[in-house]
Structures are given as C-alpha cells and as structure tokens.
C-alpha cells in the first residue's frame, strides 16, 4: 500500500496538479476577449502591467487593502491558514526525506517543531473559518456543502499528518490516510474551486488591468485597493 500511494498515485496526483494548473491558465487566457471584457489587453500594456501588479500585491499582503483592514480577524486567520497550507507541505522534513529517496532532490526543511506548530495553526484556522460560516448570517446564507467539503479537503492532510507524526497507535493507518488526503488535496486544486490557487492571480490581474487601463489608471494615481 505504501509503495502504491507514494509511487504511482503520487505521480498521478502531481501530474493532475501541474497539468491541471497549466490547462487552467491556458483556458483563462484564451477566454479573455478585449471587446467583451472591454479592456484593451494588448494596448497601453505598461498601464496594464502596473494595474495588474498593484491589484495582486495589495491583496497579497495582510491588511494591505480596505477590505482586509475592515475584517481584521478574518484576515488574520485566512493568511495564517494559507501560509500554513503552502509552507508546511513544501518544507516539511519528512517530505524532503521522501523526495530525496525517490527523486534525489530536497529543499531546505523547517524544524520539526515549527512544522508541527503550523499544522496546529492550520487546523485552528479552519475551525475558525467553519465557525465563521455558521455564525455570520451573511456568510451562512451563501455557504454551500461544497464550501465545507473544500475546507475538509484542505485540512484533512494536516489532521492525518498530525496524528501520524505523533505516533498514535495506528501509525501506519494514519500515514497512509495522510498520503491519500494529501494527494486528494493536490488533485482537487486544479479540479475544484481551490483552483483559486492560480485563478486568484489571474482574476486579480484581470481586474487590475481593467482599472489600470480603462477605469482611471491612466488618469488617477491608481485605485486605492
């Protein structure tokens, strides 16, 4: 089982992850249309680039925009969660040992205690986001089962990994569960709306170009996001 999930299944999930993302990017860009979107993507390019970068960068920093500042707790947990989701798997010591064994490459690794801390924080962040979905009427109304499923897909590798790392009696079970959950997460990124992994950047760039080229970017200082 271990061989299978860390072998062919791992290959498959990485392939779906990378190819899926490339397809997403390709489809998005192919579907842009200057007349329908009413943005001259190919003209006034320097304004477009400036608008796109501003639109991405302000939102990439916690409290960088009005909206982030208006919602301090949400912003805190969303950023903590995303940082944990990105850094922990990539820089986990265990993953890097595996990488070295299989493909002969490895990255710098986080100290184990730090990774463990991140894991707990990600789990707490997800709990916060779930409670928020339930508590706030304006969020509850628009939340669907799909939204909870995505949170589950994202947090599952962390819960299982935590249990495996702490050598619970069923270590082997949790290890396999962890690997499978991680692979599901990877595959889900391009296949579900977790595709915001990449579409966040594309969509933000698009609106940034819209504002940068057409909606005032050439006259004002640029939108104060």
């Amino acid at each position, binding site marked *: 089982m271990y061989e299978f999930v860390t072998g062919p299944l791992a290959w498959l999930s990485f392939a779906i992850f990378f190819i899926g993302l490339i397809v997403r990017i390709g*489809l*998005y*860009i*192919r*579907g*842009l*249309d*200057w*007349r*329908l*979107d*009413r*943005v*001259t993507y190919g*003209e*006034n390019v320097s304004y477009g680039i400036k608008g796109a970068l501003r*639109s991405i960068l302000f*939102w990439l920093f916690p409290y960088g925009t*009005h*909206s*982030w500042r*208006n*919602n301090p707790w*949400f912003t805190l947990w969303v950023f903590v969660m995303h940082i944990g989701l990105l850094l922990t798997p990539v820089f986990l010591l265990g993953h890097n040992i595996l990488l070295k064994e299989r493909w002969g490459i490895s990255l710098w690794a986080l100290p184990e205690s730090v990774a463990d801390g991140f894991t707990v924080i990600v789990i707490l962040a997800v709990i916060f986001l779930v409670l928020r*979905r339930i508590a*706030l*009427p*304006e*969020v*509850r*109304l*628009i*939340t*669907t089962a799909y*939204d909870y499923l995505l949170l589950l897909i994202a947090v599952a590798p962390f819960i299982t990994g935590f249990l495996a790392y702490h050598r619970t009696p069923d270590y082997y079970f949790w290890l396999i569960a962890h690997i499978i959950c991680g692979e599901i997460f990877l595959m889900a990124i391009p296949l579900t*709306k977790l*595709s*915001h992994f990449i*579409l*966040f950047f*594309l*969509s*933000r760039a*698009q*609106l*940034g170009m*819209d504002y940068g*080229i*057409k*909606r*005032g*970017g*050439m*006259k*004002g*200082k*640029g*939108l*104060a*996001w």
Partner: protein
Amino acid sequence: MPEGKLCNKKPVNTKEELQALLTDKSGKQYYEEMNHLDVDRKALWGTIQKSFKSRLKTWLEICSHCGLCGEACFYYLANNKDPRQVPSYKIQQTLGKIIKRKGDVENAFMQECMDTSYAKCTCCTRCGVYCPFGIDTGIMFSYLRGLLFSQGFVPWEMKIGSGMHRIYRAQMDVTVEDWVDTCEWMAEEYEDDWPGLTIPVDKQNADIMYTVNAREPKHYPEDIAEAAILFHVAGENWTVPSEGWEETSLAMFGGDWEACKLQVESVYAAMDRLKPKRMVVTECGHAYRATVIEGPYWAGLKSGKTPVESLHYVEWVAEALRTGKLKIDPSKKIKEPVTYQDSCNYVRNAGLGDIAREIMSYIAEDFREMSPCREHNFCCGGGGGLNGIGRYREQRNIGLKVKRDQILATGAKLVIAPCHNCWDAIRDLEEIYKIGIRWSFLKPLLINMIEVPEELKPKEE
C-alpha cells in the same frame, strides 16, 4: 401569448412603437404582457455561449462565499444587513442559476432576475473593490441586464430609453432641430447679461467640442447657457455639434448593447466631422462612463479611447481654475461647510477623485469629505437607471438612506453633485427624508464665484 404588443424581444426602432409604449401609462399593459412572455431558451443559451467567457466564468466559479462583499454594498447596509442583499448571493441566485441550468429558465424566474438586477444593484461596482478575488458583481449584473434585454425582460422606462437612443440618438425625444434651437434660444436669452455670448454650432477645428445630457435641452436649458457663459468667460474656442451632442446612455443601463454602439458612434462621428482638439462632457457621470470609458469598446475602437481626447466637465473646470482661465473671487468662495458627491462612474470607474478635490480647494473654505469617499464612495442610490424606474421606486428610496446618513455625518448643508443622476437622487432624498440640505451642479456655483473681466460685463447705458 408569447410576444406582447408592447413587451417583446424586439427593440423599439420606430416612432410608432415608441409612441405606443409612451401611451401605456407607467407600463401597466407592458408589465401585464411581460407575465406571458416566453423565454427563448435556445437563443438565451446561444448568447451565453458566445459571450460568457473566462472572466465572468471565473468570477462565478471561484467565489469562495466569504461574504466580504456584503458590507461593500449600500443595499445590504440600507436594508439592515439583510443577507439576501449580499452581492454574491444576488448574483448566484440569478446569473448563477441561468448558467447552471444552461438557459433553461421560466418567465417568473426571468422577472425575478430583472427585479434583482435593477432593484438590488445599481452596477456601482463597489463590491468588486472589496472582493479578494476581484469579483466585480456590478459588471456581472450589467451583463445579466444585457441577457434580460435580449429576451424582452427590461423595465418599461429602459425599453423606452433604448428606443429613444435608437430613434433620436438621445435618451429623450430631442431632435437635431430642437437641440440647435435650444442652443440659439439660450444664447439670445443670456446675451444681454453676457455681451458677445454665443453657442457656436458645428464649428470646425474648435479647441473644445461640448456635449451634453438630453435632459439639458429638454428640461434644464439654463444648464447649456451656464456652460456657454463659463466657456465664454474662460475665452475658450468651443462648439457644439448639431448631431452627436448626446452623451448619455439609457441603453447601457438597459443592456441594449446595439443601441449603445449606435449612440456613441453618433458622437464619434461628430468628432470626425468637426475635428475638435478635445471633447468636454457635461456634469454627468454615466454619460462620461458610456461615451468615454466604455463607448470605444462598443464601437470596436482598438485603442480603447475616443477618437479625440475627452474630458469630464470637472476636468475642464479644474484645468480652467488651475491655469487661471477662470478666476475665483476670494470673497465669494463657499464659506459654509460643503461636501462633494463622488460619482461612481467618473470617480471609482474613471479615476477623477483628485480632480474633484482640486476643484474644491479653489472654491470652498470648509470642504467636508464624506466617509467613505473617492473610489470607495457609496452609490447615491439612484445609479444604474434606478432613478427613472417607477416599478422600483420603493427599493430605491430605501437605498437612499446610506447617502442620507453619509451627508448628515459631514454636517454640510450643501452637496455638490456634478452628475445628473446623483443630483436627482440627492434631490429626491431631500424630498423624502427632509434633512434640510441643498444640492447643486458646479456650473451655477461657479458663475456666482468667478471674476468677470470688465470687457465681458454688460455696458451701462
């Protein structure tokens, strides 16, 4: 009865059809017929497949239902934070469902979509500025209005408006003769007070081609006279075109993209014909948005720009004050607290926030900002055509509360609103809520404040 006599999928192209609609007081028969209008599902889905591309698709798809857009929407705030007013909810329940069902929707649902896309969204695009993914629900509602128009689900007044543009190239039945006569009449009317005042029509190669909102020749001709006086005092070499003088676009509010194109092309044709150096648009927000910001795209101009450089009136005013073409008499500056209504259309959607502040710095001693302001300002409540739609009067009036409270918080009793729609909305909010404010365009205020050179004053006899 699938297609009504008045309410149908065909846009209005003749005076007879237009007259029939106008005779139907407040659209009684029109809305009755709408109850029986069939949805052409194949055509609807066909249009969607051609126009629903990655930008919109991604917006609908990746919305994480975080709800941040809620508090960005003035309707949400005005309706006691009703969750059903969250932009994400509004769009998922309408456009979202049409897409999910591949256009397989019923009459009642289409009417619901129409009610939501007009009475719950003014397309002010504020929510897009507050969404982490840059999901611009205002743009999506505008797209939805286009789909609804193509199926005949459009408020009575907007159907009339689009017909007006198609027939008269103006949002009201103002013909070329009416317009030119009004200009002549105004020039004569004010000539005694302003010797030498003219309103030059169709002058070639002028520095400025001035264009207006059809309401001005129709209901507020003094506005044209005031513009003329200010150009006259500033010593501008200006003109108005006999054709292509109308900047507004009820067609844009109504989602009649074909009429949008016809309308802006008439203005661009005037530019080609008269070869002015620049065009200046009157104090109207959506007119500027339509003709200067969006228009080039409707007309297929690859540069995304109008054939000649185009300014909103506030840009011209700021320039005239900056360069000294117009001088303010310091003793006549506005002394009382005064605030400024940032129009979504030329501030959030065209970047003119600084220009407005510059003007205020020349003319006001106690300028009070609304909070929020500039590109974050709330819609006045009357945008997206809402001021003019009887069916949604009640919802509009509730929406006005946000602007009312914003104005009250400044303590100012005078609101400068250089946008026809904002001006109307603020007038109406005073009428309804009686908070004791006055409101004004820039032109009449400026005329009372400027220093008039001796040679331009009437000679005492």
